[in-house]
Each structure stands twice: as C-alpha cells, then as structure tokens.
C-alpha cells in the first residue's frame, strides 16, 4: 500500500508490500504484534520494536530510542478498502459540496471540501464512478469517520 507523509524536506512517499502477515519495504520487514507494536527486522537480521500511535493525522513512532511525528497526507478516499464510502478523515465542517447525486465523476475529482483545525481537506474520488448519495451540505459539522458521500464504482 502507498502512503504519503509530510516531512521537513517535503512529502515522502512510502509503499509497503504485504505477504502473509508480513510487510516489506526495501530490506526491512515488519509484522504487527498482538499488543499493537511493530516488530521490524532489518536485512542483517537485527530486530527492533516500534511503538505507534495516531493522533489526528499524525503517526507518532518510537524506534531505537528515537521518536518521530509523521503527518500522513490524507489522499481523500484513495487506497482505502472501504469500497465506495468516502469518510471524514477528522471532525470538521463541510465547506463546500462540489457534486450532486447522480453525477458521473472520474478518479481524482474533488467531491467535497472540509475544514478542520483551520486547514482545508479535499475529499477526492479514488475511482471513476457515479455519486449515489451526498450525506451532508455545506456548513454541516461532521464527526471523524462518518460517510460523506457514496460513490458507485464503475
């Protein structure tokens, strides 16, 4: 799976591959432990344990005595497994609704704009499809995780 994180030197793209219970990236392989920690094995066989916690959009990671804050750049609904459900990435206010039910949209189309923490977040179609329903109007407050629109993938 592919993710973007913000760093002082600009966005970083990370793509991790999964095989069985194991994720890999370059020479690193990682598995999720029962207690939610990550077991990271380096190419030389060295094992590290990573602690992670997500606060808002930021993944906090502790590894080898270092602590990192990695803000995930929210790709709208792309790369999610939620099917056509486009959900609010955080609590906020709907600023603008750019599509209506029945409209045909293509992947990448901005469907809705949210405001949260004084920042704007675009909700983008991950695939081509038809807008089946729009669940909120401009000015509405939304909770984190609620479905904003339903998209029927074509």
């Amino acid at each position, binding site marked *: *799976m592919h*993710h973007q*994180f913000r760093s002082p030197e600009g966005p*970083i793209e*990370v*793509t*991790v591959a*999964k095989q069985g219970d194991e*994720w890999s*990236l*370059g020479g*690193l392989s*990682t598995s*999720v432990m029962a207690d*939610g920690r*990550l077991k*990271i094995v*380096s190419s030389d066989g060295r094992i*590290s344990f*990573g*602690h*992670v*916690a*997500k*606060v*808002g*959009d*930021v*993944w*906090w*990671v*502790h*590894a*080898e*005595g*270092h*602590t*990192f*804050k*990695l803000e*995930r750049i929210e790709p709208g609904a792309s790369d999610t497994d939620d099917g056509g459900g486009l959900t609010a990435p*955080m*609590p906020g206010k709907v600023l603008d609704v750019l599509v209506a039910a029945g409209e045909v949209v293509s992947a990448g189309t901005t469907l809705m704009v949210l405001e949260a*923490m004084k920042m704007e977040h675009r909700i983008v179609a991950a695939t081509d499809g038809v807008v089946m329903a729009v669940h909120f109007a401009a000015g509405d407050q939304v909770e*984190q*995780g609620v479905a904003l629109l339903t998209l029927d993938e074509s």
Partner: protein
Amino acid sequence: MRGVVSMVRKVLVANRGEIACRILRACNEAGLPSVAIYAENDASSMFVELADEAVLLTGGTIGETYLDQDQILAIAKSTGADAIHPGFGFLSERADFARAVGHAGLQWVGPSPEAIEQMGDKMTARITMRAAGVPVIPGEEIEHEDEADALAAIEAASHRVGYPMLLKASSGGGGKGMRAVHAPEDLIESAKGARREAIAAFGDGRVYLERLLTGSKHVEIQVLADRHGRTIHLGERECSVQRRHQKVFEEAPCATMTPELREAMGQAAVAAAEAVDYEGAGTVEFLLAPTGEFFFLEMNTRIQVEHPVTELVTGVDLVREQLRIAAGEPMSCGPLMMRGHAIEVRLYAEDAANNFLPAIGPLAVFRPPEGPGVRLDTGVREGDEVTPNYDPMLAKLIVWAPSRPEALQRMRRALDEFVVLGTTTNIRFLRELCDEPEVITGATDTTTIDRIWPNGWQPTVPRAVEDMALMAAAVAESAGLHRKQSMASTGGQGAPSPFETIGRRFP
C-alpha cells in the same frame, strides 16, 4: 529542643502533580491520613486518587486555586487536617502563608516564616550568610529604592566588584531581574533593565551586584534540621547542566568532589541553616569555582525537585523525615553514609529542537523504562492529557548504580526504553546529553548546554532508524492500527478526542 512537641495526625498536601504523589505516598507509608486539594482541571489527575480525601478547589486560575491561601486553610479546617505540606513551587516559599498556617493552629511542614523571609530576600540572605561566616560571591548590596540613588550607588559599587559582573534582583529567582554586565558602558542600561523587570515581577526594584564567576559548577547541599537541636547535611548534588536557567540533569555526588571539600561545604550549609534557626529539609546552593572556592548563592527553604538523587545515595527518605520533623520527632537518620552514584533527568513536554518550547497533547503512549536501579517519580499516566495549565514537567527519571559510569550507562538504557507518544518531549535531548564528553567526564558547568549547542540542539537521527519509522507509520496505517486504537480509546467514557490537540503549542 524548641518548645513543645507538636503532633501531626492528618496532612493536607497543598500541591499537585508528581510532588503531590510523592508526598501522599510518604503520608500513607507514615500511617498519616492525607487530604489532596485539586482544581477542576485536575479532577482526574493521579495525585487526587492517592489521597485518602480529595477536595475540589473552586476557581479557575492558579491564583484562585492552588495559590488561594484562605480557601486552602478553610479546607484544612473542614477536613480536620492539622498539618500542611506545601511541596515545591506554589505556596512553598511564601512566608505569609507559613505564618497564616501557624496562626490557624496548624503545623507547617517546613521552616519558620522568619527563616523563609530571611532567605527569600536575597540581599538579606547575603548579609545573614556573611555574618555567619558562610562565603558569599564578592559583590555589594544596593539598598536604595529610588532609581537615581540606586543607579549612582551601583555605579560606585561596580568599581569595587569588577567586571564581568551580575546584577540580580533581591526578590528575584528563576533568572528574572538578572543581567550579566561585561563592560562599564553597559552598566547603567543593564541596571535600569534589571530594576524594571524586578519591579514588574516582584514589586521590588532592589538589586545587588555579584562578580560573574565563569566556568563554575552549581553544587548544592541538602540539609535537615529537627527541633531536637540536630542540623545535618546529606552531601551535595551537582545541577550545573541547565537550559534557560532550568536544571535538566542532576547528580549526586558531584564528579569532582573531594571528601575535604564536601566537609567544608557541608559545614557551611549547616552554618547557613543554623543562622536562620532552620527546621525541616532545605537546600543551600553554592557556586563552585574552578579554583575550588565556593560561594553561597541562595537557600531553598523547601523540598527540592532533585531531592531523589540525594535519597538514593544517602538512603534517607527526605519527605518522610520532613513529616517526622514537623511532628516534633527527632530525625531518624544516622551518620552520613553515601554510596554509589545517582542521576536524575527532568522529562519535560517540550520541543528541545525548537528552543525548548513547551508542548501539549495526549499521552497516547506513556511507557516508562523498567529494571533494577530505575526510579520514576511522576504524576501522569498513559491516557492523560498534557495541558498548558501547569508546569510542563512530566516526570523525573532517576537511576542509581554503584559507580558514575554505570549510572550514566543505566540512564542511557532507561532513556532508550522510555516511550512517550502523542506529546513532544525532551527524551532524545536528554539521551544525547548522556553522550557528551563533558557529561561523561563530569566536567560540566552552568554554561555546558550553551557551549555544546550554541545554536540550539537538533537531534541526530541515523538514516536506518528514520527508514524504520517511515515503514512503521506506513504499516500502521495500512494495517488500520488507528481504527483499532480509536475503538480502544472509546472504551472509556468521555475520553476526549485526541484530535483536538494535534499540533497546538503552548504558549
């Protein structure tokens, strides 16, 4: 013996956070029922749970709560507490409160109001110490209140004190109303600035001059005095490593101490305490010059943040002794018996890479290190929220080991194991500090941090570890660990959304 023996049967702890926890546990172990007081925003704090009773303070600001003397005395009365332990900070060095506590018929866990006053005014303290034969930094007190008179007197005194020098407010503390002056042409401007700051902060513009002793260590002596005529010292702590006048790394013993110097400084500290008829636990701070000369800086008339390092090397439970002494009992400790080496670091919620700016946020993960020789004094737990309301110190991590190199190594391991996520802390800064040559050799002085990192500290992160972190974040996101976490976090009722605090900073 000074007068009758008082009894203490129930202790109100007029403080919060980690020191309140420390004192409440000591009360419990002494078999003394305890009362906590807490502001609304501390309702779910750990110290509230450790007390046998906890009373909510009305009021929103610190002044209306933890500093509200009348309200605190009323709670002591209504709960039947007969002693008040002030901890450190807040009302701990307020002579008027100590006096009010006595007038209310309660026992103050600390020295007399007179002792607090004599040490609280720095010029009075200097004069008292000089009279007691305790060496003070060469300098002069300027008693004039009037601006013009004061400036003239400062100008005249400056020729006798010599450059470089420090101007310090008599009512000062924590660097406020303080100016270093390196050349005569800067004197008047600096004196005006120091007076202005002192008047604004303390309502008292009086300043004094001290020669600036560069390259000195901050070494302080712990003293204990009871009502049975015994005043002792418990050896020294070195607290030279400071950032912005705040101690971050404290140890006992001082790496360069000799038995003879310890005895001389200890005797001076005992003389200082006896000069003000001291009672309870106190700390006499000295500057130790590279020449081996030492000079009185000030006396802190209360328990100190860094008291655990002394406890670990001397085996004396200082808070327990405070309670004994306040109850009129003799202190229980025998002859001084120092053993091994202890180091304390202060864990702050702050961004060490950004001029130590205080940070706030949820303690999404708070996992202290384990293993022998590791002590943690804290008032927070995983799930707590770090707010801008109070001091950003999260915990004190203290290690003991048979020798200084072993203690330093244990501290490295402990800091590496310490996981705090959700709030920025200075853990990595403290960890890198442990690898600095000056810290390793013990050749630290009060300018160490500024000298090592003149342009501010930045973490050194190996590329391989950065890669691990990126991978961890990507895997965590891919595996949906945040969804599982948020389910877990809604397990409790009324847990605040962690989102609200992201990225905000205090002040």
